[in-house]
């Protein structure tokens, strides 16, 4: 059984992004880029399924500029067997990515696609669900536990106020939440091995997909700043301020 794992190259989660002074976007020049953390969890989960003998091949997929090859190499260092990059300079939106992934899924015929629940740059939380709809597959988003057996996948999901468990027929889509697993550290020997794994490059046109953006970004601005308040000397002053000044208790 084959698993597809889409991975996105994003600004590293430790970087504090800055809005460009002309308000056209955030400044990502000379900023450290990494694999989206939720996607790393997806690659780890697929790798563990392979190590457990439930999966035979893990294929990592990315879409974007040619540097996304580095992200695919990281996925292969964690455990993916090969990589596919859909190379394009167009700014991709989730709908476009979902269409690219559908075209690849039609070709590769995986039984399971595991994606991160959202990317930490545009915070959209859409691609997995959109892909499921385009393929006509069932989905389990925000997974904290995945059990694959007997032609179905049982997934525990993190929902508001608790957990929920769903059973899906295969093929299916799973999106990962933070507590699904802790991705392993990538070791040097595995990084070296990953360099030798196959990586195919294709283009949206080759897949017959139109990725033209549907949204126009008119402006990107700093959020309203919250000014620091005051330090109070003791609890009595705090309670007095909360009662008479803030009027919140």
């Amino acid at each position, binding site marked *: 059984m084959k698993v597809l794992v889409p991975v996105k190259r994003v600004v590293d989660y430790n970087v504090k992004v800055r809005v460009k002074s002309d308000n056209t976007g955030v400044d990502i020049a000379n900023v450290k880029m990494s694999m989206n953390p939720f996607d790393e969890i997806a690659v780890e989960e697929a790798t563990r399924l392979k190590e457990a003998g439930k999966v035979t091949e893990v294929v990592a997929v990315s879409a974007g500029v040619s540097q996304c090859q580095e992200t695919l190499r990281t996925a292969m260092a964690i455990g993916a067997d090969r990589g596919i990059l859909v190379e394009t300079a167009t700014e991709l939106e*989730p709908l476009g990515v979902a269409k690219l992934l559908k075209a690849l899924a039609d070709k590769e015929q995986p039984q399971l696609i595991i994606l991160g629940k959202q990317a930490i740059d545009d915070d959209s939380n859409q691609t997995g*669900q959109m892909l499921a709809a385009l393929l006509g597959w069932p989905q389990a988003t925000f997974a904290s536990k995945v059990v694959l057996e007997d032609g179905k996948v049982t997934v525990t999901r993190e929902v508001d106020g608790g957990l929920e468990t769903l059973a899906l027929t295969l093929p299916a889509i799973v999106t990962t939440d933070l507590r699904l697993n802790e991705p392993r550290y990538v070791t040097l020997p595995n990084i070296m091995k990953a360099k030798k794994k196959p990586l195919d490059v294709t283009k949206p046109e080759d897949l017959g997909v139109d990725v033209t953006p549907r949204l126009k970004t008119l402006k990107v601005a700093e959020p309203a700043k919250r000014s620091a308040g005051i330090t109070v000397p003791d609890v009595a002053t705090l309670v007095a301020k909360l009662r008479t000044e803030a009027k919140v208790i």
Partner: protein
Amino acid sequence: MVALVIAEHDNASLKASTLHTVTAAAQCGGDVHVLVAGSNAGAAATAAAAIAGVSKVIVADAAYFADGLAENVAEQVLAIAGSYSHILAPATAYGKNILPRVAAKLDVAQISEITKVDSPDTFERPIYAGNAIATVQSTDKVKVITVRSTGFDAAAATGGSAATETVAAVADSGKSSFVGREVAKSDRPELTAAKVIVSGGRGMGSGEAFKILEPLADKLGAAMGASRAAVDAGYVPNDWQVGQTGKIVAPNLYIAVGISGAIQHLAGMKDSKTIVAINKDPEAPIFSVADYGIVGDLFELVPQLVAELG
């Protein structure tokens, strides 16, 4: 122009997130209809019809809508999507799960987690964990939108008298089934709906230490939350987490105890009306967003605070 709101409900009642979404829908400029897809969801439909500003409630009732499976609810939305200019759902686990399926099938982009409606086709939404606000314009015929509750006031739950129409339920997809649910039991309000939140961080030092916050939460009728550091350290359950990857909250009063104020945490609570920080480190970033800060040992200050509240 008519906007359709996908109601989040538990069949017996509406979730508060639905009321906030109705406000955003009304700001899109036209009439507001609400879809209640559920199982024996008459009570939820009645509640939806009473929301001020809603002109029509559409009910689809079937046993396989009971647990809000995305495949089935999305199909039901698509079955009635025809004439709507806007389709909105709350940006909660429920709405985020369903709505992208609808957008993809309609071949339109989704605009996620809007915090402001600038015009019927232009919206503001936070990106990069709230470190930037993007203003985006949709060029699609239908605007498919999820709504962040903290960005919009709740519509009045009473005062409306919408007509109710029952539509035929779409067929069960048969591809996913509900197995079970573990709901965290608590007498406290839900984090995202609470007026007051008392949160603890790594500074608490242990799960046991969170007990010191309970009398404070009791006094204030508060929900209890935590930073990701405290959750990752195993002090408290995952669903307590406030932050970019946890819950986004905006209560009237947020009391951060032993929380340093990592970017990821601030992203989840900085829209709170009043923020109080209790921390022993005067340099902690939390003080840069707090209205009132006290520097000192939380194990002394929290009991004092409880006593002072009387």
